[in-house]
């Protein structure tokens, strides 16, 4: 049990997918201008990422490995993820136009969110089983969403700050992301504690 807890905490905090693994920066920078969109993006990514880890595990174990096609992993994962994202978008567009509104053009961006591809690949590299994969996927997604929302909160405040002209916008956002990563380094070693 504690193994799973450590895995989850590790995925959320210690090996945070954005701030430590530096994956998924594009939506992290792009969808963090407003808290509202960050909430939506976080929810959508969590959903897609968890689904993607599960389905890619299934594809890997029941399709690719039996046929000895491990070299097609990246390709097949991309296709699967793209399809899942498309599906999600259609479902959201139908069921919640407001959410679709706030996510705007960023929903298709999940397709190119490298975190969504990276996490399934990491799962396989670490040899996680199905439950571990799902946990790691969910943990990474929660970490991503949490950091995204916190980041949006800070950015909303920085919006009103007297930031020097040349550092306005993306520049100061990158610096902030850097300092956030610095703060997250504080968690280093926590998942190794015995």
């Amino acid at each position: 049990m504690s193994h799973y807890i450590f895995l989850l905490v590790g995925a959320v905090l210690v090996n945070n997918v954005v701030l430590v693994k530096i994956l998924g920066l594009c939506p992290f920078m792009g969808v963090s201008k407003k808290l509202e969109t960050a909430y939506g993006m976080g929810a959508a990514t969590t959903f897609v990422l968890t689904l993607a880890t599960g389905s890619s595990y299934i594809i890997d174990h029941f399709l690719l490995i039996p046929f000895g096609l491990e070299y097609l992993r990246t390709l097949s994962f991309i296709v699967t993820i793209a399809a899942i994202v498309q599906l999600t978008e259609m479902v959201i567009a139908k069921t919640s136009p407001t959410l679709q509104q706030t996510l705007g053009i960023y929903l298709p961006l999940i397709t190119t969110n490298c975190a969504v591809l990276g996490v399934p690949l990491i799962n396989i590299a670490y040899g996680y089983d199905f439950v571990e994969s799902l946990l790691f996927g969910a943990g990474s997604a929660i970490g991503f969403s949490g950091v995204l929302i916190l980041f949006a909160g800070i950015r909303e405040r920085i919006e009103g700050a007297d930031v020097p002209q040349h550092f306005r916008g993306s520049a100061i956002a990158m610096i902030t992301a850097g300092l956030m990563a610095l703060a997250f380094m504080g968690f280093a070693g926590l998942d190794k504690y015995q």
Partner: protein
Amino acid sequence: MLMNLFKFKGGVKPPTNKTQSTGRPIAAAPLPSHLAVPLHQSIGGTPRPVVAVGDKVLKGQLIGEADGWISAAVHAPTSGTVVAVGPGKQPHPSGLDADCVFIEPDGRDEWIARQPFDLVNATPDAVRHYLQQSGVVGLGGAVFPTHGKLTPAKTVPMQELVINGAECEPFITCDDLLMRERAIDIVRGIGVFRDLLQPQKVLIGIEDNKPEAAAAMRAAVEACGEDFVVVQVPTLYPAGGAKQLIRVLTGKEVPAAKRSTDLGVQCFNVATAYTAWRAIAHGEPVVSRIVTLTGNVRQPGNYEVLIGTPMDELLQLAQPNPDTDGIVMGGPMMGFLVPEPAVPVIKATNCLIAHSERLFPPKAPEMPCIRCGACAQACPHELQPFELYWHARAKDFGKTQQYHIFDCIECGCCSFVCPSRIPLVQYFRFAKSEIWAREKEKKAADEAKTRFEFKQFREEREKAEKAEKLAKAAAAQAAKKAAEAAAAAAAGDAPAVAVAEKPADLTVDPAEAAKKAAIAAAMARAKAQREAAQPKNTDALTPEQARDMAEIEARRVQAGIADAPAEAAAAPTATKTEE
């Protein structure tokens, strides 16, 4: 009588500076050399002027008629001649002009026939109407027409009537002196309000730094045989804010989105009660008020001042020191520097403070906010001024509304305590007026859109109708033509075609040509009119000549206009008959 007082959060204790101006009784200010009475002196509609240049007016005569329910009449403050009706500088931070009635006093200060109002036989509506006609407005500074506040809410029983004699702003003592000297009239006025609102109890709140006023009011209440309770409230700015005083006396909190009557409370200023009673018992409309003259002056004191008196002339009574560099209307916390010293005293003018750098040292430059939270601790409405400031400065008005900017009463406590010297209230005023302007614009845009869409719909409909008509006509014509053609067919084929083509052209042409001709004729007429309206050789004329010409011109223009529509005059009647 002891009663349980409540507290409001926040508040500040600036030095009160009140004793300077309480040493002397209220004196009547002498008649000024001229008066400028602004028509718009209360919240709501701007009264319409009912006098013209050259009219002789008597003191108390109506000069501006209330426009709508939320509006109050304006009266001549003294007898004299109306010398102008037009724009004049206003005692307003904008420094803009607004319509005033300029009166030259004749020195006799002669009243109109004053009739006491028959309170006993009057219906409540009649009393309210009478107060509106007498120009009674809230004299605490908000100048809301009093009659508009004298209707209890339909669903909520009126529990408390709060009378505001707190006067929490530093320097101001006009209510203090009024209560000391004219308590009986105030209490009678409160009695009128009580009869209209039927509250369960009446509470008169007076800050505990005015023991004389409280004693006078208690004596007056006793003398009148009333059961009003005079309560001394702790001295803490802004205890005299209506919402704060209601909170202290009743424990009720009135949010921005609600009226106090919805909570069963109503609040009036003591001076309002006083003027209401003067109007009812003596038939005197509001033509004067008590004004405190203080600040950088040698003889601070309170004066009964006619509305419309120029401020600089008035201030001379208090002998301002030579380094006076401006006049603050209102108190030092919420007042403002008037745009020029000669602006008139209005009903909202409770105090004039001679401004000098010695009295109010210039502020250190504004520093960035360090979010220390001092403002949040001082805010009597428990807002987060630093957050409001942050978003107002970034012009993120949606966020300012999330942080309840419209609950801000602009009392200035936050600016008072701010270590960074940020004019916080100023930012909030800016944000509020931007939001109002935007809402107005949004409303206008929505209306424009509806009209645009309706117009499109109408045009579509008209087009459809026309097409239908044309189709019918065409069908008829085609039938006719077919018959003709059939007839012509006997004669030969070729001419029939020519006949068939020709009328098509003709149907378009004559209408168009007629229209064009009409327009051309009208243009010619307009040109002639314009030329006629601009006679030559008008450079060197005597005033008499100019006046004569203007008269002739007016006649001519009238005739011209009468001429032009004469032919069209049939149109409206025609449409009428059609309907």
